[in-house]
């Protein structure tokens, strides 16, 4: 549905987005991750046709966003960063306006407004002015605007920003549900959302894509992926170190002692092949093992490694 090829955007001498390419198909929810100022919003603004790219090509549902902007924009629902809305209108007036500009009239307009009011829990504030709304309500009003025409494509710039945990949960549920039939891109810097919602994630840093894959694939890049953590009782820490360090597939071992108990983590040489877990179990034969688990890898660590300037390779 969305095809981005060699997208570049420069502001003066600064390259905000640098040669970015990716696709999003129907049924996919693409998480767009990156530190602040990495180029997430700029990329989204180009996809939605607000900024023209400096070079590169964007097609939305088969329409080039520069050559056929209007049919392309018809397919997109967009929630801009900070969720802007006309402050001098009521929630209902605002939704009525956006429905009308999306070409909805009469009963179709009425039922579209009722649908999004229900989905976004806006009933309580329907006739309130937008500038009197709390941040959460304003955010949901703008979100409602983006789905009012039931678009095939959704571009959401930080859709859960400024919401309380319950509202976040609701919005994520909604995104995941809509993701089954739509193509969705959403940006966030909350990593737990990637697991909760995304089918795929892209990490972008200083304008360039540094990782692109399913959440599992990204997690496997972590040194924690496939690591084994075990808690032992009555075994000295140096004995544990000694034994586990000599395992064929172990890279390093870290231990922490708490009274009689030792917690050890064994990191694998290569992530996620399962051999390490087996070897650890064999090696600990005879020890009193209270707990043993294989780590899945940590997204936050992958994120930090890929986006911190000093550790970036």
């Amino acid at each position, binding site marked *: 549905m969305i095809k981005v090829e060699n997208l570049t955007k420069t*502001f*003066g001498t600064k390259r905000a987005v640098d040669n970015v390419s990716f696709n999003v198909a129907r049924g996919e929810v693409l998480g767009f991750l990156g530190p602040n100022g990495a180029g997430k919003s700029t990329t989204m*603004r180009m996809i*939605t*046709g*607000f*900024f*023209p790219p400096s070079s590169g090509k964007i097609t939305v549902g088969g329409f080039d966003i520069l050559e056929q902007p*209007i*049919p392309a*924009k*018809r397919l*997109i629902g*967009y929630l*801009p960063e*900070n969720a*802007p*809305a*006309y*402050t*001098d*209108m009521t929630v209902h*007036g605002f939704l009525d*306006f*956006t429905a*009308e*500009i*999306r*070409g909805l009239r009469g009963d179709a307009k009425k039922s579209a407004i009722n649908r999004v009011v229900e989905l976004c829990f806006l009933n309580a504030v329907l006739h309130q*002015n937008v500038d009197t709304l709390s941040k959460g309500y304003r955010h949901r009003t*703008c979100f409602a*605007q983006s789905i009012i025409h039931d678009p095939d494509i959704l571009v959401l710039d930080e859709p859960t920003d400024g919401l309380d945990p319950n509202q976040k949960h609701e919005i994520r549920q909604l995104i995941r549900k809509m993701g089954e039939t739509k193509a969705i891109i959403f940006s966030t810097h909350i990593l737990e959302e990637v697991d909760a919602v995304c089918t795929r994630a892209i990490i972008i840093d200083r304008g360039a894509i540094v990782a692109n894959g399913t959440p599992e694939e990204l997690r496997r890049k972590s040194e924690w992926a496939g690591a084994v953590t075990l808690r032992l009782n009555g075994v000295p820490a140096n004995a544990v170190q000694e034994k586990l360090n000599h395992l064929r597939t172990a890279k390093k071992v870290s231990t922490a002692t708490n009274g009689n108990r030792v917690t050890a983590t064994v990191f694998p040489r290569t992530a996620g092949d399962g051999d390490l877990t087996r070897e650890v179990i064999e090696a600990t034969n005879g020890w009193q093992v209270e707990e043993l688990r294989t780590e899945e890898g940590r997204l936050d660590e992958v994120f930090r490694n890929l986006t911190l300037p000093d550790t970036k390779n």
Partner: protein
Amino acid sequence: MNSFGNIKTIAKRELLAYFSSPVAYVFIVIFLLLNGFFTFMVGGFFERGEASLANSFFMWHPWFYLFLVPAVGMRLWADERRVGTLELLLTMPIAPWEAIVGKFVASWLFLGLALVLTFPVVLTVNHLGSPDNGVIFAAYVGSWLMAGAYLAVSCITSAVTRSQVVSFIVSVVACLFLILAGFPPVINLLQSLTHNWQWLVDVITSFSVITHFDGFQKGVLDSRDIIFFLSVIGFSLFTTSVILRTHRTS
């Protein structure tokens, strides 16, 4: 959906926005008070004893509009940029020119409404004498066109900046130029500065709204004057679209 529908939707929203805040009512009241005061107190409507509105009523309009029209136009684009709704508006399936025309038309209709509400002065002059209502009608048309030209200039300044105050000041200065370009002391100054290059002086003075409004006040609907106002509007709206595009590219 067609362009007309889009323009209508945008204009409707804009008009509702005017009336949902006190700005519209304050504007109309001030406009009417100024008109009443200048027509009857300064313009000497009764003392003149003429069955006409030209010298007591319409002659003030270029000066009222100088301050009042930029006040109406200053928020048009500056506010959209400040609040961030510009991003929303320009990612909707509409052409940018439809948004520009829609917003302009809404404000222009609003100014038209304010102008229509001055009808008591027409009733008064008809009650006291028998004026040529055709002349009065022509002058109303001219006044509205002139307001449109000022408004289009305000659109440009409003698109340039996020700040309504800056937009207001710059557009007052620009509109002042439109008035002063036909002002005799300014013409004399121009002639001495340009060493009597008459063509250049003519070009500059032909930009003055006063010379073009003159015909309407005498009851003449001259196509050249109409074209002048419409082309100022057209050019200004085009410039607005260029400015809005520049914001997005750089």
